[in-house]
């Protein structure tokens, strides 16, 4: 009796150990499979840029240093290109925020039914085929002359950035509780000053994220710059591998920033949410 139960216990223990081993093996296989998949897709996604880095800094299997970075800086008006992109991007970012902030606020807080129709329309605008947004016309027949090419870019780029900004800021706003600005209204602020003094400061991280995004969208926009022929070279075409590397690094950083802000705003356990969702105890009595 004692012997058989001991044997049963031993086989049970052995069976358990076997299953545990099998699970461990399976776990390791699944994990390494996931890692292989992740590393593989990351390399594939970064492939053209990794190649740019290799081409820019390696020459016939040896490290070339900055030898390839100098020519585009010297023989092309590279600084002028960069300055154009920076100036246009900065102006477009300011314009975008000026238009999109009030619009996003109105759509999330002030309108009921018809706001949705406006959002939908903005969505269509954002996806209007590019060929139709910049008609296939040579610059001579376009609405802007050659000398104003950069200004025309400042004017047209917000068409792309405003819908995206409205959409993103709206998502951030929905994550903010409306109680805080309602408190401001109770305290005697008008809707406008509540928006300017309460909502906008609360949105600061979102505004930073949207500004970065608008800037990158503007600096990376190619079609508008290409079509008026004179602006094409002033803005779009960056002629060397080094240029791509120089552009890609800050972009990757920008993406990280946007994602981090997005994550913080959308996660229900994030610090922003827990801090603001405290019930506004003494206020309603006033």
């Amino acid at each position, binding site marked *: 009796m004692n012997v058989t139960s001991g044997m049963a216990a031993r086989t049970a223990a052995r069976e358990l150990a076997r299953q545990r081993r099998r699970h461990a093996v399976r776990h390791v296989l*699944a994990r390494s499979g*996931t*890692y292989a*998949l*992740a*590393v593989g*897709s*990351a390399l594939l*996604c*970064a*492939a*053209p840029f990794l*190649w740019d880095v290799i*081409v820019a800094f390696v020459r016939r299997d040896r490290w070339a240093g900055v030898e390839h970075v100098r020519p585009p800086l010297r023989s092309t008006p590279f600084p002028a290109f960069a300055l154009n992109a920076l100036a246009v991007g900065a102006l477009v970012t300011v314009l975008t925020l000026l238009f999109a902030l*009030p*619009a996003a606020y*109105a759509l999330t807080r*002030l*309108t009921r039914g018809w*706001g949705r129709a*406006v959002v939908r329309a903005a*969505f*269509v*605008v954002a*996806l*209007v*085929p*590019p*060929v*139709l*947004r910049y*008609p*296939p*016309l*040579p610059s001579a*027949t376009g*609405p802007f002359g050659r000398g104003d090419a950069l200004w025309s870019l400042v004017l*047209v780029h*917000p*068409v792309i950035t*405003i819908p995206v900004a409205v959409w993103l800021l709206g998502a951030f706003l929905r994550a903010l509780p409306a109680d805080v600005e*309602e408190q401001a*209204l*109770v305290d*005697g602020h*008008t809707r*406008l000053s509540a928006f300017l003094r309460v909502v906008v400061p609360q949105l600061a991280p979102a505004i930073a994220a949207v500004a970065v995004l608008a800037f*990158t969208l503007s600096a*990376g926009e*190619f*079609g508008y710059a290409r079509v008026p*022929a004179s602006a094409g070279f002033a803005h779009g*075409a*960056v002629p060397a591998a080094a240029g*791509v590397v120089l*552009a*890609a690094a800050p*972009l990757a950083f920008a993406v*990280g920033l946007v994602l981090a802000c997005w994550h913080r705003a959308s996660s229900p356990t994030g610090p922003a949410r827990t801090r603001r969702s405290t019930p506004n105890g003494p206020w*309603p009595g006033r």
Partner: protein
Amino acid sequence: MTGVAADASPAGRRRRFTDRDGPLAWAFLLPSIVYLTALVAVPLGLTVAFGLSDATAADPTYRFAGGRWFATVLGEGAFWRSLGDTLLITGVSTVLVVLLGQVLAHVLLADLRGRWLIRVLVLLPWTTPVALSAISWRWLLDHPGSPAGRVLRAAGVPPGDTWHERPATAMAAVVVVHVWRLAPLAAVLVMAGTAAIPREIRDAARVDGAGPWRRAFEVTIPLTLPATTVAALVTATVVCADVTVVDLLTGGGPAGSTQTLASLALARGADGGAVGPGAAIAVLSLPLPLAGVVGLIRVLRRS
């Protein structure tokens, strides 16, 4: 409670414009609406107008020409060939983007060490300007010593021959760049859909003994179907209206074999100086992306 207080308090004093929600909503919205409408409607109107005109790059005076250019364009082989190419590129890219988007969404959601780095790298194609990535792909494909160059040679392209001189490889390159660029976007959309699945459902499936495959096919995929549909429609809309990739990667060549309707419109109108036919092609290419947008709105309204 707060709502009641907010409604009651302004009644005591004069309501100014800055405090009335209705007019303020209009004041906040109108600038954006006017700006966007003007800058979309004006070019659109110009395109239609030039499609009906005799204007050329050399002689931009406007003379009404009726529907002549539309008839000419519809009678051209190049138009129908570009339409076929547009449909082919869009269809193949969309299918591949949806499939790879699922895989990438899995990667983005997986709990890994160094996840931030993997996320940044995976999202790089989506966030990098299209023009930069198209040029980078060109270098990657052009260089015989690069990994892509080796793949091309293994696929049977002789070393002396370049990929953009053969219709098949040029077409494949266009599709590859589109898929590479849009799969991360699809992954983000699918990822959002997956994250929205209630935890209880996944746990219940696990408790009921469903393995990873069964959970994928009977829980995750059906429940992320709306997100996947959105990803597919966005991809199709963007691809069929895209100019930049074709323009920079192949320039529509060899001999117009990778020309899409959008790039054909640009090539004829802006580069070729034939304003009328170019604008007519642009207008005729409108229904395809428009169908995508309408479908997208319907899907979004339902969910």
